[in-house]
């Protein structure tokens, strides 16, 4: 295999890995966009979503798409509950309290799940045919194409909701200034609740798809993807939906190239070096504008 061939294969690997980061990063960035909370529990919501999908398929004998929708619905309710119980009482507290609470929620979800489902990884039954395409020597996986297209479709739908609908308008208003929005008749609490609902549903979709693609789920599966999705969201400009997708894909490609041409040991170091570099050079991210926060 020559250099060019390996390069193209690594790009394919990178885009497919990146599309998963992008899918998780969408929910991350959306929640940040509205209440400026880095929701560290997002990766764990993703894990819960994967388990609900798993239960729907193995116990409920559903096929993949009904299971996906069911998981998104239940996880959306979970997301709203988390917001209601853990974050809402802290609405006027300093942002650091919210952040610490988010870490607490993250541990709570991880270890409550571990208690109920045991730490042993579960394997998804084969619910989708796993076809690999061989295009002139390059291997592309069918499920990965599906994940990439679902990511792009969800990004488009979300952008539409945020930019064109009344709910989106309320979201943007609440994001800009919660209290003023409230004075203008926007029910901020409801808007924030809806944001968590949508963000968590996205995480659940990611969880089920990743579970099906990689074949295993376990209660701590959300930690690393959660961190990587955070990097992706910051890279693309946190709070910006297309930024999350581009950030995720760029991150995946960088990881694949580092692993392929430097050393696989440096892969994660490269991912987090990107985070540091972005924060140093362009804190707003690739798609962000450099604006000073109003005091």
């Amino acid at each position, binding site marked *: *295999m020559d250099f060019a061939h*390996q390069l193209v*294969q*690594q790009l394919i*690997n*990178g885009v*497919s*890995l990146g599309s*998963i980061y992008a899918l998780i990063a969408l929910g991350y960035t959306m929640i940040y966009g509205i209440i400026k909370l880095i929701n560290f529990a997002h990766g764990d919501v993703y894990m819960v979503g994967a388990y609900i999908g798993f239960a729907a398929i193995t116990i409920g004998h559903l096929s993949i798409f009904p299971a996906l929708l069911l998981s998104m619905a239940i996880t959306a309710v979970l997301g709203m509950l988390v917001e209601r*119980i*853990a974050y809402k*009482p*802290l609405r006027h507290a300093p942002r650091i309290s919210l952040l610490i609470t988010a870490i*607490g929620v993250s541990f*709570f979800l991880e*270890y*409550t799940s*571990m*208690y109920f489902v*045991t*730490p*042993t*990884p579960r*394997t998804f039954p084969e619910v989708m045919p796993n076809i*690999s395409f*061989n295009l002139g020597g390059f*291997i592309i*996986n069918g499920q990965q194409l599906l994940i990439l297209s679902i990511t792009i479709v969800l990004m488009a739908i979300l952008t539409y909701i945020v930019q064109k609908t009344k709910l989106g308008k309320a979201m943007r208003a609440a994001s800009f200034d919660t209290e003023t929005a409230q004075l203008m008749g926007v029910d901020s609490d409801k808007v924030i609740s809806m944001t968590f609902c949508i963000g968590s549903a996205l995480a659940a979709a990611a969880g089920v798809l*990743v579970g099906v693609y*990689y*074949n*295993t789920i*376990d209660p*701590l*599966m959300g*930690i*690393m*993807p959660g961190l990587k999705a955070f990097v992706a969201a910051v890279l693309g400009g946190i709070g910006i939906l297309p930024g999350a997708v581009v950030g995720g894909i760029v991150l995946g490609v960088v*990881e*694949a*190239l*580092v*692993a*392929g*041409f430097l*050393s*696989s*040991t440096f*892969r*994660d170091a490269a991912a987090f070096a990107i985070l540091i570099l972005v924060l140093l050079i362009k804190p707003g991210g690739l798609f962000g504008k450099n604006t000073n926060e109003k005091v």
Partner: protein
Amino acid sequence: MFFSKKKFRLASMIACGILASALFTGCGGGDSAGGGEQKAAGDEIVIGANFELTGNHAQYGANANNGLKLAVKEINDAGGVNGKKIKIVEADSKSEAAESVNAATKLISDDKVVALVGPAVTANVIAESQVATDNMIPIIAPAATNPDVTVENGKVKPYVFRACFIDPQQSEVMAQFARKDLMANTAVLYLDSSSDYSKSLGKIFKERFEADGGTVVMEEAFLAKDQDFKAALTKIQTANADVIFVPAYYEEVGKIIKQARELGITAAILGTDGWDDSKVIDIAGKDALNNTFFCTHYFEGDAEVQPFIKAYKAEYNTDPNVFAALGYDAGKMLVNAIDKAGNDSKKIRDNIEAITDLQVGTGKITMDPSTHNPIKGIVVIETKDGVRELRTKIAPISPEAQERNEAEQ
């Protein structure tokens, strides 16, 4: 409105507190309920189970713990030892070395255990071994295969034992197998750089494989809990080696094999006892596992292993994996030692050291007093169309031969 918010905050904090405490008592299981009591003299013998019940290694610790519980349940159902029941007090090492020391200290000083079993992972056993040695409480580590677990500065730790073979044996068996059975000239190492287990196995494999005339042409690494291995595998593919050695745990191994085959890598993939879980077949798929080989502690088709597998299935309604089997073996060894010693930790230690031809779950074992490693065979298993077949069985090495080996090194 502000009032209600404040109240709500308080209420939710209390609710969280209640939930959390419920969770923690739940984790400890019923066994710890009586943990604070003094050892009831006469009718009970208390042993400690220090395992990774939460954290990154929880799946290994929990399985080993299940194996131990089964061994103890069997003896209690059969009337106990000399009319006394054995009681297990569990403690959680949280998959961290420091917590393992805390858990061992708690078990020894608060619960007054006469012996400890666990943890599952090498680093956590090494951490607790000092506490146990200071208090003269014997430990049996079910699955810690690193040589340093029982030996320190060339001297055997008097109170630390294990129920499994050691890493150098595994790597040597697989390196020789690659050279002689598979006629491999080149190998790639693909190691879990977050695990000492994986790194030490890789190092010894390389030494042995190259001493036998082969060449290790590439070394790559991944991290535990990784999901996607395709980037490194694409690079490994360019090396075009005869075999790929992946000494790691089954969850990652299953995904590595699946993704390697998807990329069109057809080379033989070799591994060690971390592979030994039937989940590998679910994760990787039957076809991907053809042309893969690993060494482990027992072959599930062996007649002498059947009683254990049957008992485990009846108790937990699932197939045992290697951690469960070794946890069970450790339990059997300890029960056997207690049988003749009662509550006396010193005598229990002596009895473990003197174990000879004891029938445990995975076969017959004899303890080597000079290293505290059991003398036990190794099996090499090949997976064909999703079915495991015994490829070769390497007989136990006698202590004399082992000494000779060590002298050569």
